[in-house]
């Protein structure tokens, strides 16, 4: 079963929530919707579910037009950010509710409810009421209700936001396994690039109601098609510096020059915006041709074993994601190095012009995951 969106647009009170979104979700695929708050993730999910109707465009399931159909006519399941269960029913009845309504024989209901409950490790809680459970268990109940139905489309709207860090990791690992054996399309909305990378599958980057890019997650991460997509899919955001290419030389500001490397040579002359990932900045040179940049420290954020160093220089601000704990004073002068062969280049209108070649270190992607 595949889901196709064709030019889906949704306008509410003169505000465009979704702008011409077109995508095809393959059967059995795991899809992450990545975008900031108000990017249109929830709006898109609600349209997919049939909770909201489109202003224009079409929604097709298995090639069949379901645009005008309400949520009850579509075989979908949804898990919300809030823990939504029926508080007056036991966990068992909560999970069984979609099956009871579908008039499944009682014996089969019992088997399926217990099976899903044990998959989600809540089989010992079946006789409790949802409000007697912890947050994680409540969300497991909601997930169990979504899973038991064997829906062809399962939607997760930031389901882990209200859970603590440890539980989120646990859930993330389980999610992949839960859906591996199923043939349904999973759509998972998140604001965190690291979560998208951890979940894998496909990623759709949304920004201001528009679909920026859709493809395999690692591919979208490595090859952003626009500056916006690159900024959305990087945490902390990719650093962008304006610069000129003139006669085989790149110039940032007035004082920083370096020779073009092989890849950037193809760009030609003119003004460009160069992007460098925070993880690719370092305190010591990694290669002979690394570019040194003198900067002033604004803030050093230490999170566990990593340091996020916020700095400014003559052309703007930057963030460096450094492994290990480093302490810096405010306004301290630091020299950062960045590898010129890892520069992304974007045109002034934001479209991607150059993507650096294959990374030399294999942990390149992992460097962004924390």
């Amino acid at each position, binding site marked *: 079963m595949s889901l196709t969106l064709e030019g889906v647009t949704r306008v509410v009170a003169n505000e465009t929530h979704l702008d011409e979104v077109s995508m095809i979700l393959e059967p059995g695929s795991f899809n992450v919707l990545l975008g900031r708050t108000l990017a249109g993730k929830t709006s898109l999910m609600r349209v997919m579910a049939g909770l909201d109707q489109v202003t224009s465009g079409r929604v097709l399931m298995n090639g069949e037009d379901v645009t005008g159909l309400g949520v009850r006519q579509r075989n979908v399941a949804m898990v919300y950010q809030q823990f939504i269960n029926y508080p*007056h029913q036991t966990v068992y009845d909560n999970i069984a509710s*979609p099956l009871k309504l579908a008039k499944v024989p009682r014996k089969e209901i019992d088997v399926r409810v217990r099976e899903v409950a044990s998959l989600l490790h809540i089989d010992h809680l079946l006789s409790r009421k949802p409000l007697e459970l912890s947050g994680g268990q409540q969300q497991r109940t909601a997930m169990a209700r979504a899973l038991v139905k064997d829906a062809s489309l399962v939607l997760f709207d930031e389901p882990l936001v209200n859970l603590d860090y440890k539980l989120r990791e646990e859930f993330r690992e389980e999610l992949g396994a839960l859906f591996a054996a199923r043939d349904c399309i999973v759509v998972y909305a998140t604001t965190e690039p690291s979560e998208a990378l951890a979940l894998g599958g496909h990623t759709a980057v949304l920004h201001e109601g528009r679909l920026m890019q859709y493809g395999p997650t690692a591919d979208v991460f490595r090859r952003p098609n626009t500056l916006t997509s690159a900024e959305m899919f990087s945490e902390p955001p990719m650093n962008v510096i304006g610069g000129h290419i003139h006669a085989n030389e790149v110039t940032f500001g007035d004082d920083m020059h370096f020779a073009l490397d092989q890849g950037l040579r193809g760009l030609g002359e003119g003004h460009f915006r160069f992007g460098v990932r925070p993880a690719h900045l370092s305190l010591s040179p990694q290669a002979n041709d690394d570019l040194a940049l003198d900067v002033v420290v604004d803030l050093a954020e230490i999170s566990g074993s990593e340091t996020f160093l916020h700095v400014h220089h003559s052309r703007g601000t930057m963030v460096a994601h450094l492994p290990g704990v480093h302490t810096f004073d405010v306004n301290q002068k630091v020299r950062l190095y960045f590898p010129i062969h890892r520069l992304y280049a974007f045109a002034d209108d934001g479209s991607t012009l150059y993507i650096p070649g294959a990374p030399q270190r294999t942990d390149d992607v992992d460097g962004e995951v924390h």
Partner: protein
Amino acid sequence: MLKRAVLLGAYVLFVLLPIYWLVNMSLQTNREILGALTLWPENLTFANYIKIFTSSSWYMGYVNSIIYVLMNMAISMSVALPAAYAFSRYQFIGDKHLFFWLLTNMMAPPAVFLLPYFQLYYTIGLFDTHIAVALAHCLFNIPLAVWILEGFMSSVPKEIDETAFIDGYSFPRFFLRVFMPLIRSGIGVTLFFLFMFSWVELLLARTLTSTQAQPIASVMTRTSTASGIDWGTLAAAGVLTIVPGIVVVFFVRRHIAKGFALGRT
């Protein structure tokens, strides 16, 4: 600690004294009531109560009151539940104004509507029926019910509705099986308020009835006769008027504090 107990005791005494006095009078003969001041019945008598329970003109007053109050509760609830759901879940043109307008109905004194109601009901033949009083009391009870229920409904997340529809509930089934149990205490509290306001309302109930649907409060005025006022029976009737209220409060006592917060926690 002692000071608090004294103050509290004084307050309770102040509140309960008139009620005690009413009970005291209802158990006395008229002669004793009009005689010297007595703090408790010297000649305990239940004659006043027996009179009320044996004379149909007396007890029918209670029956009439209960009939129109129950009718009003049923009408108000069946109108207010869907209305409150609409106000809490949907946005439509002028929704806020309409909600405010509903509330303003509670600000108008019933006396303002007395004449038009009387004229109207008399003309269409509703005069002196239970339904006339029940409908007239909707004037203030429906806005009240909508107001209370809207608060309770808005405290239920909209996602529960959507989850139910995703699970496959039809709207009526969802409303009865999922939604109403969730706002159970709100419904209980609303019923209590509906009962109270309809039960104590006197002006409309008296004016819109004569003999067939006469409320108890109206029957009580008949104790004033040429031979003076029948104080004992009047007091007994008064005591019996308080009893239904006490019964209702007993059943919703656990939800009542939540009810005054109107679900807005």
